[in-house]
């Protein structure tokens, strides 16, 4: 059949380049590998020439594939499955890039492009190391590109081609018609949760971080392959530093994104996807330190090998965890199951790098040069090594816990996450924070090889004292209030707070007393200072995070007795608060009014205007006010997504999001009358949206709502409403006769816009129930609000750490002052803007 209106050419071009890139990557792997084995210079060079051409070909092909996907997405060619799945007409142009990396194929492509670009730099700069390092990169390219190939080998489809056609992928009656495209009005589009500017920035940075970890791996392999066991450290170290900076920033961008636009209520949740990227970073940091030790003293070579290998292996393992759907129920944002073939290929990818590298490592263990002399406990290298070991073991702990779904799969067990997931990590990690804080404070005051104890004590006395005083003052003025996990954990949090403040002070002091203010060599100290500052921020913001939307304290429907009549409990966290439009409610130090709602640019997006006012207690004058616009996004399939809004102060953030909202439209005057029905117990009446059941009539009720005495003359109708969507609501209108006359106490079911009146009693033991359906709707929203104190310390710490690492990298790579300054200023300003100003 001839189909109308299809644009098949871009797809054919795209798929041709996919195949070309894949073949080129195989050729370049083989050629680089052979070049590395040849000793004859002529032969070696001719293999290298082949390899370079092949590698460059696959880079250019990858760029063309990327451009083609962009082109078909930008033109909304819904005949392509990828476009149909990830793009839609209403999508703003800035999210077109995000469409590309939303899917499996696109994100593998992004990764492959970063590998290729880094590979080009290696080809230009690495000299002797080029062949073995590029062998590793080219091999990784083969695995990444095969994920895009999408050709059948027997019955198994290898990879999934981003240019497959919608009509070939899904079956539907419309595809039997030549003009099927006219029926596909729009694509599914980018997931709403991902429509955020972080989605444009975060994945490329994170993937650059992942991609760059292959270079230390490649150098470590090169060290083993060339038997120049120790020489690779010098060229690999700047790369490892760059990787640590980019990956660390990428991870925290994810945190900032989660904090800004997802309703997690925080920036870190120990979600498996977060853990999977944190673990390689921790190992990388461990490896970085052992490499520095090796350069200075000759110790820790084996550890440097191991950590360099494991960093990339865990990048691959985390790809396996997050891309194969194995995490299933434990993660909110893992990719979903992509099909058996892809799963097997990812597993092969992990195995192809893990087994040979670790095998070579073990085979060469005996041949590696190692110093017989032991490190003194008074040496810097000793404490640095301890620190690296602690980081490494932490990463083992985290990945062991994260891998539980994998054990379940292998052993058929049913182990699930503990009740308090975050705490199960925090209680271990806080101990790590203490150790790392102390080590990063003290270690650099030791000199390599040996240091006299008197010297150390003299140098660290002042920073120790200052840190102790600051911690004590903080404990007094601004105590940590993380009581809910008991005194032990609070104590640990205080020790960790001291350790991290200590590290901030000691590192700042070291720049002056240890390095005499030579900023060029201060990269390490600056990075440690930033890291410690981040720890301080994490400790304070998470332990003093405060829920201000506590409905027990300020709910509009306060229970009369101490216990909530509905929940029968008084001590559970009731963090949602309902706001009726135009009715001010006290929330923490603020009086909050839900003013109005309005539509945003995108269809289905609704912003709620919340006015926060802080009033003077005595004069009732408004001291301060601001407006927040959290929004709710109703997607095409009527699912909702809630995006928070945050008011940022220097010292704290007020963070709020809508946890429940209904759509209301009419806003006219209320003119309806009560409609009277006569009902006996068990009888049913109708209203427009369902039925009303009179359960029973209670005399002198004494319950959560009414407190009549047996001597009163009161009747209450116990009514249940069942709406069409089968929601149940209770209504309790009452009537009371006293010396002043008849007193009717109406009840309201706001959710159904219904007023209930106990209008009277008939002669035949029935009651008159008045029902009024109002067309003046009561508009309300339910929201959650938190105050995060000092969260800016987290972001500031991160930025300082990144700058420190770049300073080190620049020094280790021996860049000229000009390039160094440019790199620092661009990175520093960019990060500072993204994390602290743009909001």
């Amino acid at each position, binding site marked *: 059949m001839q189909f109308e209106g299809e644009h098949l050419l871009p797809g054919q071009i795209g798929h041709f380049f996919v195949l070309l890139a894949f073949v080129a990557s195989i050729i370049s792997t083989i050629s680089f590998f052979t070049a590395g084995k040849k000793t004859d210079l002529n032969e070696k060079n001719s293999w290298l020439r082949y390899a370079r051409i092949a590698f460059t070909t696959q880079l250019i092909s990858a760029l063309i594939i990327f451009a083609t996907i962009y082109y078909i997405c930008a033109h909304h060619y819904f005949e392509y499955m990828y476009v149909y*799945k990830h793009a839609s007409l209403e999508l703003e142009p800035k999210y077109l890039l995000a469409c590309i990396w939303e899917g499996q194929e696109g994100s593998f492509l992004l990764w492959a492009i970063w590998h290729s670009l880094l590979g080009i730099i290696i080809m230009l700069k690495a000299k002797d190391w080029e062949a073995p390092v590029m062998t590793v990169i080219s091999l990784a390219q083969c695995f990444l590109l095969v994920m895009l190939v999408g050709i059948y080998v027997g019955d198994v489809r290898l990879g999934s081609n981003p240019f497959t056609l919608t009509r070939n992928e899904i079956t*539907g*009656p*419309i595809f039997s018609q030549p003009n099927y495209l006219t*029926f*596909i*009005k*729009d694509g*599914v589009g980018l*997931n709403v949760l991902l429509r955020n500017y972080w989605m444009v920035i975060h994945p490329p940075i994170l993937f650059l971080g992942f991609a760059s970890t292959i270079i230390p791996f490649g150098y470590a392999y090169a060290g083993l392959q060339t038997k120049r066991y120790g020489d690779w450290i010098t060229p690999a170290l700047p790369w490892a530093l760059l990787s640590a900076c980019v990956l660390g920033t990428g991870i925290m961008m994810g945190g900032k994104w989660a904090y800004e636009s997802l309703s997690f209520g925080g920036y870190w949740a120990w979600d498996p996807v977060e853990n999977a990227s944190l673990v390689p970073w921790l190992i990388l940091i461990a490896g970085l330190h052992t490499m520095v030790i090796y350069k200075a003293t000759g110790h820790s070579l084996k550890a440097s090998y191991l950590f360099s290998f494991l960093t990339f292996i865990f990048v691959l393992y985390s790809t396996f965890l997050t891309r194969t759907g194995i995490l299933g*129920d434990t993660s909110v944002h893992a990719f*979903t199951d*992509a099909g058996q073939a892809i799963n097997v290929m990812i597993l092969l990818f992990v195995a192809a790098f893990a087994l040979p590298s670790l095998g070579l490592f073990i085979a060469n263990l005996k041949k590696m040069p190692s110093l017989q002399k*032991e*490190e003194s406990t008074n040496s810097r290298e000793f404490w640095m090594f*301890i620190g690296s*070991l602690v980081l490494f*073991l932490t990463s*083992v*702990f985290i990945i*062991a816990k994260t891998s539980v779904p994998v054990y379940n799969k292998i052993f058929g067990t*049913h*182990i*699930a*996450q*503990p*009740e308090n997931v975050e705490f*199960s990590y925090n*209680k271990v990690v806080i101990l790590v924070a203490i150790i790392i804080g102390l080590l990063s404070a003290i270690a650099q005051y030791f000199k390599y090889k040996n240091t006299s104890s008197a010297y150390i004590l003299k140098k660290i006395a002042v920073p120790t004292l200052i840190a102790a005083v600051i911690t004590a003052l903080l404990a007094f003025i601004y105590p940590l209030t993380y009581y809910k996990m008991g005194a032990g954990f609070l104590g640990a949090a205080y020790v960790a707070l001291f350790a991290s403040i200590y590290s901030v002070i000691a590192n700042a002091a070291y720049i002056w007393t240890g390095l005499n203010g030579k900023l060029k060599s201060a990269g390490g100290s600056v990075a440690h200072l930033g890291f410690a500052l981040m720890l301080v921020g994490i400790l304070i913001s998470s332990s003093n995070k405060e829920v201000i939307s506590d*409905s027990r304290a300020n709910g*509009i*429907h306060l229970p009369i007795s101490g216990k909530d009549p*509905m*929940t029968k*409990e008084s001590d*559970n*966290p*009731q963090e*949602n*608060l*309902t706001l*009726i439009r135009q009715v001010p409610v006290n929330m923490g130090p603020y009086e909050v009014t839900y003013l109005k709602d309005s539509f945003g640019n995108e269809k289905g997006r609704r912003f709620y205007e919340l006015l926060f006012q802080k009033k003077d207690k005595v004069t009732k004058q408004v001291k301060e006010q601001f407006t927040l616009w959290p929004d709710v996004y109703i*997607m095409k*399939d*009527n*699912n*909702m997504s*809630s995006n928070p809004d945050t008011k940022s102060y220097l010292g704290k953030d007020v963070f709020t999001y809508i946890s*429940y909202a209904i759509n209301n439209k009419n806003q006219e005057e209320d003119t309806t009358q009560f409609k009277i029905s006569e009902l006996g117990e068990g009888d049913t009446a109708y209203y427009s949206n369902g039925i009303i059941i009179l359960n029973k009539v209670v005399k002198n009720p004494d319950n959560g709502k009414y407190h009549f005495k047996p001597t009163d003359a009161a009747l209450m109708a116990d009514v249940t409403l069942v709406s069409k*969507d*089968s929601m149940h*609501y*209770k209504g309790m209108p009452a009537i009371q006769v006293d010396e002043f006359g008849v007193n009717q106490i109406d009840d309201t*079911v*706001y*959710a159904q816009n219904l007023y209930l009146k106990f209008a009277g009693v008939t002669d035949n033991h029935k009651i008159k129930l008045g029902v009024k359906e109002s067309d003046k709707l*009561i508009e*309300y929203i*339910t929201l*959650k609000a938190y105050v995060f104190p000092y969260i800016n310390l987290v972001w500031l710490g991160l930025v300082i750490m990144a700058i420190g690492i770049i300073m080190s990298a620049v020094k280790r790579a021996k860049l000229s002052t000009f390039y160094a300054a440019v790199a620092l200023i661009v990175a520093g300003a960019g990060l500072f803007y993204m994390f602290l100003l743009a909001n």
Partner: protein
Amino acid sequence: MKKTHIIFLIAIAVLIVALIVFSAGDFSTYESISSAKKKQGTFVHLIAKLDKTEPIEYDAIKNPNYLSFYAVDSLGGKTKVIFRNSKPTDLEKSERIVMKGKMEADHFECKDILLKCPSKYKDDKKQLEKTITNQQDSAY
């Protein structure tokens, strides 16, 4: 043995002890409704579906922190669920619900709900087929 070796061994021992001590009691299990009923008061994970024949009770004005509904699982178990929090907006449309909490006398006291909604499974072909068929219907 070198000092670093000793430290390494000690550190690994500490890690193993930490993993066991900190985590042994720290895991819960996936249960069916009937097996969870046998473990009253134990924190478990339930995988179930919303029972659409029973009412969902939630009135944000009366109490934004009280939701109750019924859940059924594939083995035929059924339980009332109470979730003292706001109603997840897609509850009615969910295909599967993972609930964390404890079984109590007459209900499942739920601490956390994870919904599996059709829309989140963009890669699910069946869903795409449904979507594309709907588009056609709306075009006619």
